[in-house]
């Protein structure tokens, strides 16, 4: 158990993110890639994710505003989005993307709209939670752990 209360809090927070199903093991993968050379790797990747995927979200949003849906296009966008989401281990967002793509395949516009709203919600929630998490992580300072042997 950590002695540092802040770090303990951070651990709890991280655990709850996993327990509530927001994140999956891929996030651990990212964490494992973090080392002395890249102390903020996870945060960097997540930041990049939110910067990059915002554009796709916007694209999808615009595509959904049209009267007739171009399901192929939507599917392509969502494929991209899903790829990014799964790379950071955003479990819930990924689940929604999968659902969205299924709706795309079955040409269910209504389902797409609904799922997209849900997806945006999950996306925003995760962002909020991760932001809080990273902020706390910055405050808590680096972990005193042994580095991976090079």
């Amino acid at each position: 158990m950590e002695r540092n209360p802040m770090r303990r809090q951070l651990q709890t927070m991280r655990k709850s993110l996993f327990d509530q199903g927001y994140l999956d093991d891929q996030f651990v993968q990212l964490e494992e890639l973090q080392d002395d050379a890249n102390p903020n790797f996870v945060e960097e990747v997540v930041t990049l994710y939110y910067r990059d995927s915002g554009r796709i979200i916007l694209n999808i949003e615009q595509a959904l505003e049209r009267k007739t849906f171009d399901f192929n296009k939507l599917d392509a966008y969502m494929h991209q989005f899903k790829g990014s989401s799964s790379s950071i281990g955003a479990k819930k967002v990924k689940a929604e993307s999968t659902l969205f793509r299924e709706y795309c395949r079955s040409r269910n516009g209504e389902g797409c709209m609904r799922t997209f709203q849900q997806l945006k919600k999950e996306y925003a929630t995760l962002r909020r939670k991760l932001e809080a998490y990273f902020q706390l992580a910055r405050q808590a300072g680096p972990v005193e752990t042994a580095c991976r042997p090079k």
Partner: protein
Amino acid sequence: MVCEMEIDQIEDMDVEVLSSMWPEDVGNDAGKQFNVEKPGGEQDMLQEVTIVEEPTIVDFQHLLELTNYTDKGSSQLAFLVKHWEYKQANAVRLLREELDNLSRQRQESELKKLEILEQHRFEEERYGGDKRPISILDEVLDIWQEVPRTNNDVVVPSKRVEIDAEYDTVIYWKQRVIHLEKMLEASINREQILKEKLQESILKLEKQSSPIEELSQILKRADNFLHFVLQTAPVVFGHQDKELRYRFIYNHFPSLQEEDILGKTDVEIFTGSGVKESQDFKKEVMEKGLPAKREITFETELFGSKTFLIYVEPVFSKAGETIGINYMGMDVTDQVRKREKMAKLREEIAVRKAKEKELNKTIHITEETMRAKQMLATMSHEIRSPLSGVVSMAEILSTTKLDREQKQLLDVMLSSGDLVLQLINDILDLSKVESGVMKLEATKFRPREVVKHVLQTAAASLQKILTLEGHVADDVPIDVIGDVLRIRQILTNLISNAIKFTHEGKVGVKLYVVPEPPFAKEGSQHASDGSTDKSTTTSASKAESCTSTSKTSCDQNEFHGKKYEGLCRNNSLCEPGTPFMNGTADGDEEQAELPATTVWLRCDVYDTGIGIPENALPTLFKKYMQVSADHARKYGGTGLGLAICKQLVELMGGRLTVSSRVNCGSTFTFILPYKVSISCDNSDDPDDLSDMADHDHVMDDDETAGFFQFLPRTLGSLFSSNGSTRTQKLMPHNIGFANPHKLNGFSENCYLFPMNNGRPKEIDSVEDACSVAEAVQIPSEPGSSISHSSDPDKKSSICSDLHRLNDANVENKVSTTDVSSCSEKTNISEPQFPPKRQKKPDVGCQSTLNGSQEISKNSITSKPKILLVEDSKINVMVARSMLKQLGHTIDVVNNGAEAVRAVQKCSYDLVLMDVCMPVMDGLQATRLIRSFEETGNWDAAAKAGIEQDSSQQGRTPPTKRIPIIAMTANALSESADECYANGMDSFVSKPVTFQNLKECLEQYFA
């Protein structure tokens, strides 16, 4: 049986009798077809009703026959008979019951008699004192004892004999006997009476009416009811025999006599439309033997246009043969009319609703579009202002002291900035044209120069091995009037388009005079519109021609172009004070006074490119439309260019058309009207000649040159028109002269450039003064202004050219005499630039890792080279980090096409390939790489549009096959099978985990 009835008959009818006669089960059962009210005394409505009976015309004979022969008739009869029988049976039953009753009573009375007798005997016996011997058997079998007892109790309990005399005396017994005798007598009497009653009843029964009478009465009553119901109903019904001759008809509104109808057919009675149809319909029913309904509209002389709903049913004989039809018709003319009206109304309503909906939709769309357009325009404007600031500053920066690399970077920056500016301008133009705000300017310009300059510009930024050529026919006037800016825009757009879609061969422009095309009427209207708006024509013409030329020649140095423009303006602003002004004004007036002739010029922009499939032609000129999404990805662009061109051409009163063959090339043609002012030309020419006397061969060359060619070798050269000799020819001229005429109004301007440093300033100023003096000396020359305006054209281009040389040699401070050699230098150094640009993406891809590049180079021998092909930044970041931990550094490219280029350049030990990517997906890239490995050449890649860098062409194919590992998200579109089928070796599923990646790489780098 059926008879004609009279009114009094009905009144005479004995209602009481009838009411009893009417079979109850006929009248009351619900669901019976024949429902007749049971009249109760005064309630008989029929009494107050008059029934007119004339309409019925009956062929009795036939009816009789019918009832005899047809099933229906006989069944009807049978029905009636059955009824009668039933009624009789009922009466008999009632009588029987009564009889039973009576006999029971008699029995009772007999029993009583017996009882009395018995009692008597009993008493006698008792009286005698003898005991009646009762055997054992007797006890059992004696019924008499039991029966009377019950009878005593039940039947005559009240009739107990009351005798006053004392019991068991003689008087008592006597009295009792008398009493009993009386009772017996009374009983016998009663029996008698009952018997009489029975007799009476039987007699009565006999007296009752015969069944025939009753039936006829029933029928009469039914008939009355029928009449009552039908008397005002607008129906016609009747019976027709096998030959469709009427045998019976009922018509409420008879218009024909009996003899006119009976025994005749429809066709014989009526004439007109519908008659035949009804006849046929009846025949049909008869043939089919099934009843049917139909609506038939008659148009007869007899009763006009009427629609009848006709019901026809076949009548069968007992043997089952059709012997005729019953038919019933009802006039439904009004209903049909109403119905039709309703249908029409409904239809109209539906149409109106649909229209409304459509309209609403259109309104909505229009509003949306308007809003979007407005926003786009506003935004574009907002973006343009700061962007031009950026570009301008970059241009200024480019004039400062920079090293070679900085210069290159700046060039890229400028060209990118220009591109964005161009795009925004496109959008603004489009919204301007669409909103009708765009005004055309009428300026004098030289089509040859426009063609040349546009080609020059295109050649300067050409990144392909293409020949650019221009043909201008001899009959094309030297000067024409039109909106040169827009025409240039169109031409530039079409040429850059052609270049974009042409991979080898040539792109060219042909300009020639054509007769007035058929659509010219509206066109000329437009043109005149344009030319009437002349307030600033002349001064503008100078400024514009200046701007345009300078713009093209120093496309990448627009800043300078703007400076020129400014100077031009200054120049024209200065003019008012000088006699020059007169010349300008004169020219202007003449232009306005003399009728300007219109010349139609046709311009073909042709290429040997990929062509346009026929199905894409209709949408080609639509906004944001490209041949296919595939093209958009491959070639980029907004899809606005052609739309703008078309709108501009049409705005100027011309037409833009296209013809194309896939894989052979396309030709875009626009035909535009231009004004030619003959008087001006005339006055212009001599002036030009005199003015340019010293170097007329140069001008000649420029004015009448009909052919320009920019060969791939002279890529980017600015002076390669009319062959490379021209460069030598022109340059010495230019520099050697250094003459006042040449530099006329721009001499001062030229001083701005360090290039002029070597030249004595005094000469210039003196010469400048000279030129002004010269100009002043020839104020009466009407064309002077024109000559002036055309002159600067020349000059500006030259100036900018000089300036260009300048730029290249800023640090050298070259002297004037060196310039010619410099120019050659430029020619050599300039072409180096485009290929570098071409290389750019590759450089970029290799340097994506920039920091780690050195490491990878250092460790090239020991460590495997890995190429990561992935479009998602996040995935790149993750994968790179993982590979880094595994001790690998990687090169990253973002799509399949880049991957192929990377493999062309450099041999890799492993490729990690994403499957789904823009531009080219992983599967295709893999196929291309595999094809190279098998054939040793990149033909397949070239076919797919990836050109190999010439410097790499000699590279020998690698002996081993590059392992290509697919990275899939396990989606349907990228199944493992497909990966293998396309030549991939294995796959890692996404999201990539450290373990997976490690295991996968260990397979190859064990």
